[in-house]
């Protein structure tokens, strides 16, 4: 999962003192509905438990249009994409560790452990130092065939993807036409959709290496893609593209780690959808799977085991895609609060001052 971001703009007639109230490293908490006169009637934990999104304020600006706030998602507390964060300065050595124990030793104080499901028959052995908890957690999860999800309340859930996300029994259907409600499924209305396949990052083999203090690079392990590619180059040679991953630790299950890595470098089926339906994390959270039927691009009718569902009076054969990114507008009626960064936080209701985006569509991007 890559880091998300957010941006909100306050109306030009918003009280100017909100500039002083909303400070960096405070949090923006978005709830599906306005929480009445005093959100703290629910208590801090209560507000965070009903939040649809929580982000960190990292930037604020002011111009003729008013105050603008922006920042990143809560994963920022694990580390950012520049490998900056609460670095693991003390060496953490894990030997045949469970996922839960690994998280206990790697998580920063800003993110606490939530629901952890141990992957069956897999432990982790590795060493981590001078890297962010984000990089360490990603390595552990990739090695154990697990995934993680940072919740709006600042906890992290981890485990096999079927335990962390809705994978096995999607309840949402995306179909180019004929969308709508159904007793069995929720249909997403589609204002615009684009489907494409991208093979740019495709690799046929993965390799793990380590480098010692003498700059000697050693091969740790390798894994070929299954099924092997059959495409050839202009001269008839089978496609051979390799990704090299250098690690500081040494994941025990090299094949699991490399299979996970190669899954991220496969032919990616993408669909980009603009919808007015999407309600944040209501029926479809980032990471969840859902049914997508858009023949000829997305259909399982010709697969050995088609997925068959009955949806709105029709038999369709969708593919299961995962939501990998979503951008959604703030709509009137949502609650938007600033949570101050003190030990005993205070909440400031920004809802009356938000430049809502009622006429904009939500954009979601899915991948297979």
């Amino acid at each position, binding site marked *: 999962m890559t880091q998300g971001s957010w941006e909100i703009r306050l109306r030009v007639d918003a009280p100017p003192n909100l500039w002083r109230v909303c400070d960096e490293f405070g949090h923006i908490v978005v709830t599906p509905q306005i929480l009445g006169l005093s959100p703290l009637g629910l208590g801090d934990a209560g507000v965070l438990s009903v939040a649809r999104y929580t982000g960190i304020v990292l930037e604020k600006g002011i111009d003729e249009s008013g105050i603008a706030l922006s920042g990143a998602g809560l994963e920022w507390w694990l580390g950012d994409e520049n490998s900056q964060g609460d670095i693991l300065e003390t060496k953490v050595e894990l030997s045949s560790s469970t996922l839960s124990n690994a998280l206990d030793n790697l998580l920063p104080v800003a993110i606490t452990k939530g629901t952890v499901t141990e992957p069956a028959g897999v432990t982790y052995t590795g060493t981590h130092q001078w890297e962010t908890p984000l990089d360490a957690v990603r390595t552990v999860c990739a090695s154990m065939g697990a995934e993680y999800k940072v919740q709006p309340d600042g906890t992290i859930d981890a485990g096999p993807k079927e335990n962390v996300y809705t994978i096995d029994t999607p309840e949402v259907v995306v179909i180019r036409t004929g969308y*709508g409600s159904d*007793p069995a499924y929720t249909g997403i209305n589609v204002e615009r959709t684009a489907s494409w396949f991208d093979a740019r990052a495709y690799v046929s083999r993965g390799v793990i290496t380590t480098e010692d203090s003498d700059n000697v690079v050693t091969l740790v392990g390798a894994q070929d893609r299954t099924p092997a590619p059959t495409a050839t180059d202009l001269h008839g040679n089978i496609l051979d593209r390799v990704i090299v991953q250098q690690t500081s630790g040494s994941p025990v299950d090299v094949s699991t780690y490399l299979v996970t890595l190669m899954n991220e470098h496969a032919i990616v089926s993408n669909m980009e959808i603009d919808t007015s339906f999407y309600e944040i994390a209501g029926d479809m959270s980032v990471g969840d799977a859902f049914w997508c039927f858009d023949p000829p691009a997305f259909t399982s009718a010709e697969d050995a085991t088609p997925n068959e569902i009955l949806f709105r009076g029709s038999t369709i054969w969708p593919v299961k895609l995962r939501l990998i990114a979503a951008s959604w507008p703030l709509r009137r009626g949502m609650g938007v609060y600033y949570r101050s960064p003190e030990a005993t936080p205070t909440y400031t209701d920004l809802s009356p001052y938000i430049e809502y985006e009622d006429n904009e569509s939500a954009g979601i991007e899915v991948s297979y």
Partner: protein
Amino acid sequence: MGTLTVGRVGLDVAMSDPAEWTEGRGLDNRETRIRGYLRSSSIDNTKALRTELLEQQGKIVALTYSLDSTMDGFYILTDVVVETIPVSFMNKGLFPYEITLWKIGGSGATEFQSLVTGTVRDNEHAITAGETQPIHAPARLHKAYGVDAGTAAIQDTVSTEDGNLNRYYLVDYAADPSWSVEPSNYYSAGAYIEVGGRLRAGLDAPTNPASFEVGNKIIKIVPSTSGSVSDGRLDVSWWTGAAYTTPVSFEFYFNANRIPEWHYTSIISNTPETCRFRLIRDAEDTNSIFRHVLDIEVRRGCAFASFFYTFSSGTGPTYIQIREESSTDTLLAVAVAGADDTPAYYHTADGWSIGSSRDLTAPAASGGVRIDNYVGDFQRDFYIGYQLSAGAPDRHQDMCLQYHGPLYVQERAVRR
């Protein structure tokens, strides 16, 4: 005075001459603009023209004009503006309108591509993909039918209320047929929905469980009523060459309880190729958190209609039952193909049959057929058809195999 048809608008309530017709051509422009007045023999008909014209926005429409057939063709209706003048309600209505269309082309310049997706329906009868009979029917009086790959289908002619229709069965799932047709024939023998006595062009229609009609000119489904209120039954009749059969009234049971009334209707899909219509009933007569949902699918050229029953609760019925009204006649059970001996459908000695992808039983005491098992978590499927003749593809067993080879068809019009 001429008549104009814009898609289905003008097919039941006549649409009079336009006042102005503008064609534009440019490097990126194939725009047609038509202005006129919606007016008809009654204010209700004029309102119907307005509603259905608005509902066709965004669709491919066949356009014909009796005074200038050179303009007949296929267009995309991009924009619709209708001005309602309430003072005209006192007379028969007079609504100025303007529509903007993007011209695809006339009959010689337009090709329809039927994008076909399908495979064998998941079933409990061991019916395999090779045993199914996928069936596809383009518009009536189509020409230049062809497939770009796969095995060729078998052509058949079926009688419809609009005239003979050529259709194709044993269609290859991997083949996408293409064909052409005159605009005036595009909707002929197509699937259609009427609500409140009006032919509907789109999805927007009032809920009316006591007055609707779903059909394809071969099969026709209307509600059975008692005192102008739905009594939960559906009257189904079939065109057998010269007239429709006497309607057969089917009733539906949730366990041992007959559905006494449908409360709500909506149109799910409305194209000449396929129409889908939804009936909903509250689980209790007054407000309930659960619903019975019965979806009806009718496809062009098919002698059967597909039904999908869902009860919106995790604890659904033990079974659903479908039977001819008050009849406990013993039906004939037939297993079709495969290696499974359980019946795939039941039929009367002549006439109609009921089949399902799930195993069926026929309880002698209460009649009809019973479906115990679910599709997925809690959906049940079945079809009701009629043996139009004793030869393929009209027989009971053919319809069963056509039902088990469902096709999802998207029609697109492109310039040749």
